[in-house]
């Protein structure tokens, strides 16, 4: 097991390496000069030149890349062009916010998704199944930011008769539980829909398996058959989806973070792209990608725990 984990961790290196090349060339190709943006309006050419010199932007791209990677390998992601702070610090300040947001959203998605999916599967082709799946489809089809804005309209501002304590706080993260609810719902809804659908189809598949018949042939009750024998197997593909969703949340929280003024990785990256803060973009994308790969590793491991048959090679 530990050997497997080490191997998988090592396998992430080429992926991250690829990601770093991709980000670097991406940033290099994007028009826009960080020095110019930093200097702002009216700055003289000399000012811009000084800044460019300081940032090492005059060097050829491969040199810049190699220098950058040399530092990355030593755990140094460089300094933000704009604020001058270490990229690691900038990321640290936001990292946990995004992870937390994604985590709660995942919890919500899993909780709602599993319940809905199981009910749907057990009662498939009944009205409850159909209505759950229609709701799930709605969840999938809503633009995230639009949903978020709608939530703010309804639950933060709310109608006049709504009691004060029920009004959720529209912006921010981490000071107050009432700030958490709306963004978590916004981000988690799509995931819940996907998980519900996945759980349903996976459950239906598993319910048709021979070993479920075996369990029934042993005289087991429906509850035991569904929740013990079927669910544990059905969870395996669901976990993959959960992993992917969590990973997706990390990168995809951009919109939610913008709407709810949450200071997370997504917004950091977008802002950094806007201001051509290359080191931040590189660092953030690397971290997000790493996390994504890492979450998938966790998924693989839980695969193995849940279903020993799966050949991880």
């Amino acid at each position: 097991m530990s050997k497997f984990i080490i191997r998988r961790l090592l396998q992430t290196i080429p992926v991250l390496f690829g990601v770093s090349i991709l980000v670097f060339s991406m940033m290099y190709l994007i028009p826009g000069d960080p020095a110019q943006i930093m200097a702002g309006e009216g700055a003289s050419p000399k000012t811009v030149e000084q800044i460019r010199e300081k940032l090492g932007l005059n060097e050829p791209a491969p040199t810049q890349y190699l220098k950058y990677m040399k530092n990355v390998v030593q755990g140094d992601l460089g300094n933000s062009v704009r604020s001058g702070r270490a990229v690691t610090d900038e990321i640290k300040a936001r990292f946990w916010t995004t992870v937390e947001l994604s985590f709660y959203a995942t919890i919500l998605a899993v909780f709602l998704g599993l319940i809905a999916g199981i009910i749907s599967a057990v009662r498939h082709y009944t009205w409850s199944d159909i209505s759950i799946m229609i709701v799930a489809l709605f969840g999938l089809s809503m633009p995230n930011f639009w949903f978020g804005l709608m939530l703010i309209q309804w639950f933060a501002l709310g109608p006049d008769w709504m009691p004060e304590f029920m009004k959720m706080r529209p912006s921010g993260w981490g000071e107050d539980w009432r700030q958490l609810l709306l963004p978590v719902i916004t981000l988690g809804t799509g995931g819940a829909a996907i998980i519900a659908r996945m759980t349903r189809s996976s459950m239906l598949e598993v319910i048709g398996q021979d070993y479920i018949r075996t369990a029934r042939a042993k005289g087991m009750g429906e509850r035991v058959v569904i929740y013990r024998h079927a669910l544990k197997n059905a969870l395996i593909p669901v976990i993959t989806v959960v992993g992917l969703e969590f990973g997706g949340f990390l990168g995809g929280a951009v919109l939610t973070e913008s709407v709810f003024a949450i200071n997370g990785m997504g917004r950091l990256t977008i802002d950094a792209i806007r201001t051509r803060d290359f080191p931040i973009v590189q660092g953030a994308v690397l971290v997000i990608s790493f996390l994504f790969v890492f979450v998938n590793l966790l998924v693989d491991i839980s695969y193995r725990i849940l279903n020993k048959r799966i050949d991880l090679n």
Partner: protein
Amino acid sequence: MAKKELLKVEGLKQYFPIKGGMMGRTINHVKAVDDISFTIYEGETVSIVGESGCGKSTTGRAILRLEEPTEGVVTFNGHELTSLSKREMRKQRKDLQIIFQDPYASINPRQTVADVLNEAMTIQNVLPPRERRARIIELLETVGLNEYQADRYPHEFSGGQRQRIGIARALSVNPKLIICDEAVSALDVSIQAQVLNLLQDLQREFKLTYLFISHDLGVVRHISDRVIVMYLGKIVEIGDKYSIFENPKHPYTQALLSAIPVPDPTREKKHIVLTGDVPSPIDPPEGCRFHTRCPFAQEKCKVDVPVLRTHESMIKGHKAACHFVEEIENGELHVKGFEEAVF
């Protein structure tokens, strides 16, 4: 009788790498086929029998180079297949065909029967396109299907009929040798008989040679001239049908034959029930590969690899790979941990 050698397999090995370790290196091999040699003469049917995973299919696929063999030489009709370029090999494929086990998986579900046959002829450029339709009808009739079925899709046929389509496809390029890989195993007995009869009729009509792969000894006895018994990637016994079925020499062949239930309730039958499971082809046992389950196994068996050889009690061409053919024959060796049972 001067028999013409059609297919000669020498020292064939097929190892499949097992990837693993840090960077996906090859850490081991599945020794699916491990150094086997045999010859097939024109017009005969040679069967390969053995338990699941002993390398029967792999042998067939390696001959066809559907999987490039690890080692060994396959000579067909005077051409050394194993050293041909891919292109030259494509030409040879006209003479070498294969029929598969699964009647459902072996035809592209999106092609009509006529498409299937037409494609085969196109690939090998068998006939001018104008004449193909007529040939397709002829082929269908040969395998017992009707003209009006030519434009049907596979899902509209039963298993037995599909198998006939597979046979027609193989025949469409006028091959010399057909490898039948479990060609009737998936069929019901009543249908199986139809297909077996068809195969025999075709052999007579077109002078076909069959390499017949099966684990069903009833079928094998019915159709073969000679039989090869494989165990864990190696040939343990080879001989004509009568020698194998009436006078098996290798303890494995004996056990195999006795393990098959006989459809005759009045017949009291002794079964040699082997203990244990077939070992893995990844780390096959040293020495004789059968020694872990062999009731006669001796120390020597664990060390020395037996070679195929003949003995005075065996007729010409009958060979077995056992160190103790004589001793077993003479009753000098005693059964150890061996269960003989009457059902």
